[in-house]
């Protein structure tokens, strides 16, 4: 291989990278020589630079209006937690909240049910617990239930790695009747946290993983609660606290938690 340009497609990619200033000096030099010596290559180069300059002058970057900046400034001056979903966006004309997925409502029930489990004995203050729940609720209301839809944990786990630099255990429980549905990013306590979703027949189970450095599964029975017909279970796991929420039957959720914890130890 004397030429780095193995195919027409590769040639295009590398020429594009040259136009974008993404090449190292030696590769750039090779491309420059090629442009000088090959008329077809030169024509392609000139088309790319012509397109670039046309875009620069014809399609400018947007500028945020003073009105939008004021709307955004208002976000930061409001106290974030402890308010039921209201945010200006909820009233905005183009957002519709009618169709809220069951899992969203479900996870909102974490509000009172999950709190006791959450910060028990780890020195956090109760305000923070409220904060966690409020943030969690708010995010769920504004987020799609599933950000990455996949039944393959080898897809979901790298997705979390990539998005959050967090690696919760992603386990597929299809053999136990809880196939993996995908993953989602939630905001809890001001931090982005991973949430996994599982199917149970027609229902959805949310499993939220809140990082807790040095945490371990102590084997203790999960704390559980029922609220508004939704089941919530929380337990400590390896480096994360876990919260499972769903509208499945209590026994089903307990079976899910057991199966998950068993699989997590393997």
């Amino acid at each position, binding site marked *: 291989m004397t030429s780095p340009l193995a195919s027409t497609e590769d040639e295009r990619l590398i020429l594009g990278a040259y136009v974008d200033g993404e090449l190292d000096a030696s590769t750039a030099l090779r491309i420059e020589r090629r442009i000088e010596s090959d008329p077809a290559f030169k024509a392609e180069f000139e088309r*790319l630079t012509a397109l670039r300059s*046309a*875009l620069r002058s014809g*399609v400018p970057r947007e500028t945020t209006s003073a009105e939008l900046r004021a709307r955004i400034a208002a976000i930061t001056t409001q106290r974030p937690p402890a308010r039921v979903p209201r945010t200006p*966006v909820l009233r905005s004309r183009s957002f519709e909240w009618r169709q809220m997925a069951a899992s969203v409502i479900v996870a909102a029930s974490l509000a009172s049910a999950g709190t006791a489990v959450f910060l028990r004995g780890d020195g956090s203050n109760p305000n923070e617990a409220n904060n966690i729940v409020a943030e969690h609720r708010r995010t769920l209301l504004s987020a*799609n239930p599933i950000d990455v839809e996949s039944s393959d944990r080898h897809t979901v786990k790298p997705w979390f790695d990539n*998005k959050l630099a967090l690696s919760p255990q992603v386990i597929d429980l299809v053999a136990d009747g809880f196939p993996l549905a995908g993953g989602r990013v939630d905001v809890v306590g*001001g931090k982005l946290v991973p949430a996994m979703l599982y199917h149970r027949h027609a229902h959805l189970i949310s499993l939220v993983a809140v990082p807790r450095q040095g945490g371990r599964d102590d084997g203790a029975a999960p704390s559980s609660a029922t609220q508004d017909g939704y089941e919530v279970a929380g337990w400590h796991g390896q480096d994360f606290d876990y919260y499972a929420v769903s509208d499945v039957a209590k026994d089903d959720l307990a079976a899910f938690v057991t199966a998950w914890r068993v699989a997590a130890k393997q």
Partner: protein
Amino acid sequence: MADDKQQQRFAEVVVPHLDDALSLARWLTGSLADGEDVVQEACIRAFGAVGSFRDGSSRAWLLTIVRNTAFTWLRKNRPKSLIVTDDDSVFESAGIEAEAGQSSGPEAALIAKADGQLLNAAITALPMNFREILVLREIDGLSYREIAEVVSLPIGTVMSRLSRARQLLIAQVGRAQGKAQGVA
């Protein structure tokens, strides 16, 4: 996190990139007004999460949130417009590749003369997979690495989508300009 600290962090991490955020949201949703709603929504999420931003490109971090928010918005409001696939080959069978793969392209001078209206229409016509990467590169000016971070794809895929997006634009602009010249 204390409110003041969170506010300050937001001002440092998020506010400098609002124009980039709006440009991306405008091109993903298709209109400036919808783009503004998406940016506002994304800022709510970013404000909640700003404490978790550590290092790297704050612009890529914000644009990742904007992109996710925009797709959520599209799923709710424009479900038919949202054809996103990781399988680029579907576009080949749709015949798009045939246009892009022409060996002799239009004259560079013709492309250089394309006006904003024509370019806007050409960008709008791009499949979402290609459009988002073109916008991130050509309008927001992100590096390949930043784009790869925002769209969660390998750099190789970013490069090939960007290249195809440009070929599609060149083909479309060349065709439109050629037609206009023929009439004149």
